[in-house]
């Protein structure tokens, strides 16, 4: 019997068997690979069959697209079952978007939005150059310009009180402020909590635990109704500003813990490598540690952003009307009281929330892939 072997010729690589490639291979392996897989595939199909047709019927097929009042959305008028009453949304659209912002001044909101989009889109596309200037413009300049435009009272723009703000405007202002306020605050707090200096560490920890320990509703309530009692006599802070500060501090505390998770995932060797090169604390954190830490926790960060986006609706309890608040207020209008008004309104709001949240999540996923430099193989 032969016990030795010497290979004379190397085997060239061959393509994998046909059954593991393409659509057919995918279906065989992933959808019907095992009994459990097959069962789950069939169950999912069933779920789609149960859910999709009624949804499409309500939103599109049975929906009313034209009309001037509630009458057009009644089954008696239409002579058929009625789905969503879109004329209601069309009639209330301005209110949903702008709240009670004076109609003559609503162009200012649109200009703000346009400016935001013009600055944000190139920031999101990696290939566009001048990222640093773009970021300064968007995160530094844009909030100031937006503030001037929306609040007014300077440059000949009439003052618009924040209690007139509402709808999508409020949702976006709170979300945007919360996002660009909470991330830097969270980074600083996380650094504080990971600091070697006991006093800094303790202060950061107390701050984080306090804000995490209090429900957002309490924060908003306190900021709106209790804070004025503690402030000296004629010292007034704008109600919207109070809410914004509360939201930023609250979201910042959560963000801090997300970022801290990322810091823990950065190996000690990275600190040592940076230190040995002579990078000081801030440079080490800024160029070596934080970029890696944040990359690790992109899913957590986006999770917080999306939660924040949807939590804005809690400002309703302090009489600020965001998109959902404005929506609920509009249900009281007798001109549009139909059996489907409520569902139509919520469907509309749901679609908006879904689209924006989904977009954030997708973009985050894209960023994750783009920043993946081979750490996971």
């Amino acid at each position, binding site marked *: 019997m032969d016990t030795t072997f010497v290979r004379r010729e190397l085997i060239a690589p061959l393509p994998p068997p046909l059954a593991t490639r393409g659509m057919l291979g995918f279906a065989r392996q992933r959808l019907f690979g095992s009994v459990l897989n097959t069962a789950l595939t069939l169950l999912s199909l069933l779920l789609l069959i149960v859910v999709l047709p009624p949804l499409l019927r309500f939103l599109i097929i049975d929906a009313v697209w034209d009309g001037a009042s509630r009458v057009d959305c009644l089954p008696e008028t239409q002579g058929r079952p009625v789905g969503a009453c879109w004329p209601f949304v069309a009639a209330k659209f301005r209110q949903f978007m702008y709240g009670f912002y004076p109609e003559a001044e609503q162009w200012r909101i649109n200009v703000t939005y346009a400016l935001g989009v013009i600055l944000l889109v190139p920031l999101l596309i990696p290939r566009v150059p001048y990222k640093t200037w773009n970021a300064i413009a968007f995160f530094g300049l844009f909030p100031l310009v937006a503030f001037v435009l929306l609040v007014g009272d300077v440059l000949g723009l009439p003052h618009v009180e924040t209690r007139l703000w509402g709808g999508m405007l409020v949702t976006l202002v709170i979300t945007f402020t919360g996002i660009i306020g909470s991330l830097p605050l969270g980074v600083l707090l996380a650094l504080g909590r990971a600091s070697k200096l006991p006093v800094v560490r303790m202060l950061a920890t107390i701050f984080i635990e306090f804000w995490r320990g209090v429900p957002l509703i309490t924060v908003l309530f306190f900021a709106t109704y209790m804070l004025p009692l503690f402030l000296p006599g004629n010292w007034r802070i704008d109600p919207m500003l109070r809410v914004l500060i509360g939201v930023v501090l609250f979201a910042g505390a959560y963000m801090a813990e997300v970022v801290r998770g990322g810091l823990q995932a950065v190996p000690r*060797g990275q600190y*040592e490598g940076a230190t040995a090169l*002579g*990078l000081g604390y801030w440079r080490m954190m800024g160029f070596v540690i934080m*970029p890696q830490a944040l990359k690790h926790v992109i899913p957590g960060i986006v999770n917080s952003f999306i939660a924040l986006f949807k939590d804005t609706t809690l400002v309703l309890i302090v009489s600020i009307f965001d998109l959902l608040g404005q929506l609920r207020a509009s249900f009281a209008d007798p001109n549009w009281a139909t059996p489907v008004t409520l569902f139509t309104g919520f469907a509309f709001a749901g679609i908006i929330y879904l689209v924006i949240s989904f977009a954030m999540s997708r973009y985050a996923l894209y960023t994750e892939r783009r920043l993946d*430099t081979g750490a996971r193989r």
Partner: protein
Amino acid sequence: MTNTTEAAANSAGRAKLAMRTTANEVAVDIMSLNKWFGIFHVLRDVSLKVMRGERIVVCGPSGSGKSTLLRCVNRIEDWQQGRVIVDGVELTEDLKAIDEVRREVGMVFQQFNLFPHLSVLENCTLAPIRVRHMPRRTAEELARHYLARVRIPEQADKYPLQLSGGQQQRVAIARALCMHPKIMLFDEPTSALDPEMVKEVLDTMVGLAMDGMTMLVVSHEMGFARQVASRMVLMDAGQIVEINEPKTFFEHPQHERTRLFLSQILH
């Protein structure tokens, strides 16, 4: 090193290296260093003078404190008693002095510690740009020069984790060289490498030694040590047991512990 040609190259190299150690400036002066991790006495009255241009190879069993000693030289570790003077600057609590020393001392780690989110080129230019305030273009030229020197110029735009271990370690060496260090520390630079990649890293280090770099190397690569070391150091249980010329160290070790250690690792 049984191969005769290599042995010949070795002795030629040694002759060339011997020329370099003539300067009698002290590069690193470690005086009666004592360090404890908690209650564990990890460095016990360690004293070592490294002259400019010298190549010191430190070996010893694991846990003997050799890495810790090395890490005290750029104060990645601090200590409780004793003094360390690097290139005329004493390392104290003074952050300025520490930064000054760290700029002049390059370090190569067992686990490379490259920055995975930066390309190879960016790894090399980060410190020159951010610490030495070098213009980006100059820093990039410098980085490419050193990457060519460690023989991986074509990998400049890849990311560290796309390279083999040996290539990563050579990038780490290039990264350290970009700061123009006067002293290089190597902490078991080949211990984490696949056997086939050890040589490429050692060759790079031999090249550095030939150029007269002051080197403090923790390593168990005895072939390398024989080839380049000006002095050998054996550590055990936190103390220096023997410091000797390589020839004496390997052929007539003076201390019983050295004999035992060498018999364990040289087969």
